[in-house]
């Protein structure tokens, strides 16, 4: 039997990335008891994941981590929330324990994940997400001297390429599916955001020499049991590139499963919030990527507003609305610049697996007209990831909308499910069209 504990907070923040940390710090200023829960071994989220070899963080991340500690916030790391047995209570599973976390006010800062698109060979070992490979390198994977093709879409590609270069990787090619026209337009919107320009210039310096190709995407990954090469459609022409790793992600999708579990309404795939970051559920706030993909600066401001509003510091929250408005322009520019081109819908071959958990090929899915039908007949999305990988892929490939979510929102151990005896409330279906 796992260890069982109970903790009570005035404000519980779920997600230890920039939005969650900012929310926790702001909420703690009111003198209330604040907890922050994250599934990773330490706070920072994906963008501020520390280096395993040194334990070090960037100076910006370190400063926020220090503020969390100084604010007296209780960190609960390596714990993943899987169930809401009743409103105001969440259950989190650790390696060998389960915690009942109760709260008066909840701030959801669950972040985003990469969107993966299926193409022949994408299931080979050493084909990973762009952010995924960076996370693995930060977690100790030796990359010096390795050849890494970076592909997909979004500003993350350049940041990852720069990181890998600075750690000794060789980058034979960076492929962005978007067009030069859209990228130039995006570049222009960065004027007026000096921080973004400085970041861009630093990245440009770090990836010096790595060829960047727009209008380019992976057609197939090759190898016997492990990746050996990738065929790229490079500005219209196929090109085979030998590599040790393919770091490939097609921009980001929000993690809205937990917000849906607690009953929050979504619109166009994002959690609906008002000016104070309050969701459609009383005393539940949301900030960061689940409310719109906008990057770290927007997440910090959104988190700050959520944390202040969650503790009644409304005038302080209103005082930073103008910062958020400016950063939302960047978010809108991101959406336009890295919108996926329709040619990517023809990447999978008939036998390309779309659902990696249940090994469901493209040919079996295209017979269906909805996500529900595909799930019921093929088991697509029914494996351990619960459709977190194939759901966004089928959303793009077939324009299917996901179903409602059901508890447990992550696979949990049977003995931990056994303590969830309270009756389940009904979960609202997802509403609105998804992109």
């Amino acid at each position, binding site marked *: 039997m796992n260890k069982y504990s109970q903790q009570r907070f005035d404000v519980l923040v779920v997600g230890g990335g920039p939005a969650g940390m900012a929310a926790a710090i702001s909420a703690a200023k009111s003198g209330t008891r604040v907890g922050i829960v994250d*599934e*990773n*071994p330490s706070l920072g989220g*994906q963008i501020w994941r520390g*280096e*395993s*070899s*040194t*334990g070090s963080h960037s100076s910006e991340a370190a400063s926020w981590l220090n503020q969390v500690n100084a604010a007296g916030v209780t960190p609960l790391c*390596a714990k*993943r929330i899987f169930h809401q047995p009743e409103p105001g209570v969440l259950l989190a599973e650790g*390696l060998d324990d389960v915690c009942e976390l109760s709260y008066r006010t909840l701030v959801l800062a669950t972040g985003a*994940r*990469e969107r*993966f698109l299926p193409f022949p060979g994408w*299931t*080979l*070992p*050493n*084909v*990973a*997400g762009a*952010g*995924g*490979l*960076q*996370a*693995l390198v930060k*977690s*100790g*994977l*030796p990359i010096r001297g390795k050849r890494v093709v970076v592909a997909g879409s979004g500003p993350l590609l350049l940041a990852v390429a720069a990181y890998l270069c600075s750690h000794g990787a060789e980058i034979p090619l960076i492929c962005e599916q978007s067009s030069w026209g859209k990228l130039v337009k995006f570049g222009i919107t960065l004027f007026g955001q000096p921080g973004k320009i400085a970041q861009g210039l630093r990245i440009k310096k770090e990836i010096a020499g790595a060829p960047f190709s727009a209008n380019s995407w992976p057609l197939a990954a090759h190898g016997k*049991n*492990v990746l050996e090469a990738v065929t790229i459609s490079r500005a219209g022409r196929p090109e085979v590139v030998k590599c040790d790793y393919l770091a490939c992600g097609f921009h980001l999708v929000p993690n809205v499963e937990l917000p849906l579990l607690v009953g929050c309404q979504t619109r166009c795939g994002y959690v609906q919030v008002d000016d104070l970051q309050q969701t459609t559920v009383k005393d539940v706030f949301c900030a960061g990527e689940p409310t719109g993909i906008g990057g770290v600066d927007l997440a910090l401001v959104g988190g700050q507003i959520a944390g202040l509003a969650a503790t009644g510091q409304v005038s302080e929250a209103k005082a930073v609305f103008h910062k958020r408005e400016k950063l939302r322009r960047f978010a809108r520019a991101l959406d336009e610049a890295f919108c996926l081109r329709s040619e990517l819908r023809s990447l999978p071959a008939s036998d390309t*697996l779309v659902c*990696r*958990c*249940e*090994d469901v090929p493209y040919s079996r899915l295209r017979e269906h007209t909805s996500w529900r039908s595909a799930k019921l007949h093929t088991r697509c999305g029914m*494996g*351990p*990831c619960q459709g*977190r*990988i194939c759901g966004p892929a089928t959303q793009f490939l077939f324009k299917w909308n996901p179903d409602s979510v059901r508890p447990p929102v992550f*696979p949990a151990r049977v003995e931990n499910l056994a303590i969830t005896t309270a009756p389940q409330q009904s979960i609202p279906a997802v509403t609105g069209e998804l992109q």
Partner: protein
Amino acid sequence: MSSEFTITVNGTPVSVSPGATVAVALMIAGRPCRMSITGEPRGPLCGMGICFECRAVVNGIPHSRSCQLLCEPDMDVRTDE
């Protein structure tokens, strides 16, 4: 930082640095984390605990997401082989 230590992967010792995750140890060992239901080898994809491709049996606990688990001396890791 302190020096490297070993864990065992399917009974074979693998040397890792402090702070390395189990997923990284499996990649260093050149082992797939799991075999898919149709027998394909799989390695980590998302690196952040979402995709479950890196799940392995760690110290007897099945379905452990190895990318979110730090290596500890003498840890016993088993994959489908």
